[in-house]
């Protein structure tokens, strides 16, 4: 290639640029050499251009945010927006934390990756726990005995022998078998910034004692386990144990290690090296689901001891910060402000990809890796990305392997077919991006405060309470959640017919699952009742056309929200419009989140929005949200609507102790019927998760119940690298154009400067 450029007649600078086999050679012949400034600028511009050309000839990408080593490995690139607060399994609860802890810690049980509805399978256990029931006197009961007789349940769990912890300095010993790092001095502490700074690591076998140790940690006086109060109601002796530990802790120095092995907890027992028992009060079949959560993962005492050193705590080296487990991955880089890195645990025990799933899984390629040793990915890099825009753009460039869809990028990513099915747009399809959807085990609802005299059960007599019920039913018909989902959630949701989310044991599909108060079954699908039905109910409630029959005043209801943004304003306008259908004036009372929570706790709200993500896939985890003793007001429970119905309460108490089966389903159905009739909530909707995945990201079956799923994922690294190069070739033309523009502006300016200087010196 050869080119020639003449800049001006006055200063004819001639330059030639030749490119041969990727090399750039420059020959610049300056015809008139006495203009220093002109020459210098041209040289700089040409130099820059040359460098850019050279760089572009290497075909490398410039915008890759990862190091070359990571690009070439079998790595999954993920993202997190919220900094985890706790990585100690006894304290962590939020989804931003569990995405890490679930890969590192192994509770005894886990959910089958592919089967639906969700079913529990062993993780480190040899099988599902054996459960024995005892009466008040300690006699064993049979399955045929009445539930009321059950005073205690004993869960016996046996774990697989030979499971090893990840390599860690807490296990390191010298040749004589002495612990290397259990008693560190100041000089040794000074050299340590991360666990990787310890020269030696070790491991040991997982034992039943480690599980028992963790259960004891639920009651640790220096830890704040979110499930302590809940478990203290079930695990025998846990509350007393907490009091004992508090007493012991208060009499020792604050930084001392509290050795839980020295203090027995009556409700747990080590049977042998690999077997332990948990004794709980009464019958609580849902307890088995908790055994699939990291709260019940093992903690080795050696690690707890090491991280109790005040010098390490001062350096933020704690168990809450550096988890240690037996899971498929271990945390090797922990900078929650920037990135977290999980790497394959070299000591991970034998676990294989499942060989069976649901119909359709095979066609989707989800069984291609059946029987392969897990995990399939060597490394997972989580990058912190707080803002949506860079996160979305980096996904499109191939630097994140998956992405959620924000409302601002929804139209770019997803389109609806004629049948209402969501598919990726052509642009996304061209990039090989696919869409995976799943109904979340969650519900977003609008609640009525049942203590309120207008909308709740706070009326003076039965007649007033009946009127309030009809008012709630009328509103339930008027607020069109199908429209809400379509406008504000881009169709990502299912209008709810009751509190139980789809996919959860106890949920009913089809006509059996329809809410007859709000819908009619028409042409094989539910159809919302007409507004006339709602108006009739409103009239029966004593508010014909929205006017209070007693005093002639228009009906005004109060809606307590935390909404602030512009998006929220349109939602609130829409909600006002829904109430306006019944000629009800909806007054929005917007407060900050703290005040809002305060109102709910004190029962000062009238109508409010709330939501719930299930802890485990059972109807009990939704139905307890309306159980009377769980009221917010007075009992500080999770029943934000303060709903309290005797029949419902009795059925709940019966249902929660029953094993799954037709009889239990019958009770659940009756409970849901009561709720639909009483309408303490507008049932709102169950959100639908939409996730976008690049073609190289495989074996994905999304869900929100099980979290230890990274071991099943697979990445085609070669395809990703090819696509990244293809999509991210640097475009250097703008730099050249900018350089030329700068030159074009600078030359006259410099000329003018020179002219002025000359004229000033004359």
């Amino acid at each position: 290639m050869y080119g020639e450029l003449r800049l001006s007649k006055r200063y004819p600078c001639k330059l030639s640029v030749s490119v041969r086999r990727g090399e750039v050679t420059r020959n610049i012949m300056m015809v008139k050499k006495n203009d220093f400034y002109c020459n210098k600028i041209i040289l700089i511009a040409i130099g820059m251009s040359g460098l850019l050309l050279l760089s572009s000839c290497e075909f490398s990408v410039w915008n890759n945010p990862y190091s070359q080593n990571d690009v070439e490995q079998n790595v999954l690139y993920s993202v997190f927006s919220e900094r985890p607060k706790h990585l100690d399994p006894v304290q962590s609860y939020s989804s931003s934390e569990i995405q890490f802890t679930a890969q590192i810690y192994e509770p005894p049980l886990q959910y089958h990756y592919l089967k639906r509805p969700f079913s529990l399978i062993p993780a480190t256990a040899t099988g599902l726990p054996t459960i024995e029931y005892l009466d008040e006197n300690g006699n064993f009961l049979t399955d045929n005995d009445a539930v009321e007789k059950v005073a205690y349940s004993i869960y016996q769990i046996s774990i697989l022998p030979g499971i090893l912890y990840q390599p860690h300095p807490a296990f390191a010993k010298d040749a004589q078998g002495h612990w290397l790092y259990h008693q560190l001095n100041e000089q040794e502490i000074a050299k340590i910034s991360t666990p990787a700074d310890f020269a030696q690591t070790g491991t040991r076998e997982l034992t039943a004692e480690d599980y028992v140790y963790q259960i004891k940690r639920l009651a640790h006086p220096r830890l704040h386990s979110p499930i302590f109060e809940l478990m203290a109601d079930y695990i025998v002796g846990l509350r007393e144990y907490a009091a004992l530990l508090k007493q012991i802790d208060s009499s020792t120095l604050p930084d001392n290690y509290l050795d839980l092995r020295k203090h027995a907890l009556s409700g747990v027992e080590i049977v042998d090296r690999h077997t332990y028992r948990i004794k709980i009060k009464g019958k609580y079949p849902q307890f088995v689901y908790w055994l699939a959560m990291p709260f019940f993962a093992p903690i080795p005492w050696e690690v707890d001891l090491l991280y109790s050193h005040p010098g390490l705590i001062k350096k933020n080296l704690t168990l809450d910060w550096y988890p240690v487990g037996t899971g498929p991955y271990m945390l090797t880089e922990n900078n929650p402000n920037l990135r977290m890195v999980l790497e394959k645990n070299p000591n991970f025990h034998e676990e294989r990809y499942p060989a069976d799933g649901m119909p359709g899984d095979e066609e989707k390629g989800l069984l291609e890796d059946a029987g392969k040793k897990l995990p399939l990915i060597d490394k997972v890099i989580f990058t912190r990305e707080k803002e949506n825009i860079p996160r979305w753009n980096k996904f499109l460039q191939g630097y994140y392997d998956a992405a959620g869809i924000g409302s601002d990028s929804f139209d770019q990513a997803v389109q609806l077919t004629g049948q209402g099915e969501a598919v990726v747009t052509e642009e996304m399809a061209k990039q090989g991006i696919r869409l995976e959807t799943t109904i979340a085990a969650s519900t977003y609802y609008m609640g009525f405060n049942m203590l309120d005299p207008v909308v709740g059960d706070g009326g003076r007599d039965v007649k007033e309470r009946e009127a309030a019920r009809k008012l709630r039913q009328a509103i339930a018909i008027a607020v069109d959640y199908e429209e809400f989902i379509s406008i504000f959630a881009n169709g990502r949701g299912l209008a709810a017919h009751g509190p139980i989310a789809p996919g959860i044991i106890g949920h009913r599909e089809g006509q059996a699952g329809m809410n007859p108060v709000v819908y009619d079954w028409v042409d094989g699908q539910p159809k919302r009742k007409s507004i006339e039905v709602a108006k009739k109910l409103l009239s029966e409630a004593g508010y014909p056309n929205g006017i209070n029959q007693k005093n002639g005043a228009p009906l005004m209801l109060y809606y307590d929200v935390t909404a602030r943004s512009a998006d929220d304003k349109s939602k609130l306008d829409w909600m006002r419009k829904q109430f306006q259908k019944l000629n009800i004036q909806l007054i929005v009372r917007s407060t900050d989140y703290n005040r809002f929570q305060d109102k709910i706790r004190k029962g000062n709200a009238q109508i409010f929005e709330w939501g719930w993500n299930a802890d485990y896939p059972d109807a009990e985890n939704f139905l307890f949200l309306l159980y009377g003793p769980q009221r917010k007001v007075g009992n500080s429970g999770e029943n934000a609507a303060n709903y309290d119905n005797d029949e419902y309460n009795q059925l709940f108490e019966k249902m929660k102790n029953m094993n799954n089966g037709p009889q239990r389903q019958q009770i659940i159905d009756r409970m849901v019927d009561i709720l639909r009739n009483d309408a303490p909530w507008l049932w709102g909707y169950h959100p639908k998760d939409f996730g976008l995945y690049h073609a190289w990201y495989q074996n994905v079956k999304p869900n929100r119940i099980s979290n230890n799923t990274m071991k099943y994922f697979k990445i085609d690294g070669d395809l990703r690298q090819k696509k990244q190069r293809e999509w991210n070739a640097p475009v250097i033309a703008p730099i050249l154009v900018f350089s030329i523009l700068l030159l074009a502006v600078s030359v006259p300016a410099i000329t003018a400067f020179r002219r002025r200087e000359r004229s000033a010196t004359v």
Partner: protein
Amino acid sequence: MFDYVIRRIFYAIPILIGVNLITFVLFFVVNTPDDMARMQLGIKHVTPEAIEKWKSDKGYDKPLLFNEKEEIFGRKLTNTIFFEKSLAMFLFDFGQADDGRDIAQEMKSRMLPSLMVAIPVFFLGLVAYVSFALLMVFFRATYIDFWGVVVCIALMSISGLFYIISGQFLLGKLWHLVPISGYGNRVDIGKFLILPVMIGILSSAGSSTRWYRTIFLEEMNKDYVRTARAKGLSEYLVLFKHVLRNAMIPILTGAVAVVPLLFMGSLLIESFFGIPGLGSYTIDAINSQDFAVVRSMVFLGSMLYIVGLILTDISYTLADPRIRLN
């Protein structure tokens, strides 16, 4: 001068106490210790007992400013959240964040990323703004000056967020020249800093350039400039040797005072570019209602600002020999 600096340091103590008190009051008007406990413990299964336990462990179970239960008057003031949480800060013991992590350690690790962006933005920006301002002054009353001012006003009128989004779109997404966001290790840190530094410089270019232009124009009309020209000095020498030097006092006023604040980082740039600096630390703390961190960051910011003002005073004596600090 030494006496002056010592005196200023002593003046700083009541200012810092005042700032601390205002921060404390404003924070607790919005958030009660119960709110903070709920924020840390999560939404699910939070019982009053758990909240009390958290407050007791973190020292938030005491009265805010005045403890009526104490009998001795001194204890009425000292056995309070304000006193216990504030006193240690004057000894630079920031304590632990509500999530249990050591704040001083966290600040230490986040200071460098903040400085990696802030220092180039400050120095390159200063050079660029002064250079453009001098250029406009040199070509005053010409089309270059006119269009320069127009561009400055246009730059001032655009939100900082627009520069960030546009920069990420053009240089990162469209032209693939730099990573859209992120922060790297020592080897590849440069590619992550190009865009935030450019945007940092550009977002202040309009106002700063106009400010310096005004200063220089004011100096240009003074007698010594006319004398210099009368001596036959070139315009280049007049500008750089005389005008720039005499304009140093207002330049230092604006520039030196912010030097210590460079440690605090930029809230917006750090957040959008994923830079793990002190700016994003502050934002995170506000969002999570972590009073321990908010209080520490405000204290640090106030202290650095005072240090900046003292440094500005000292720099005056270096720039102008006529100034003495007494």
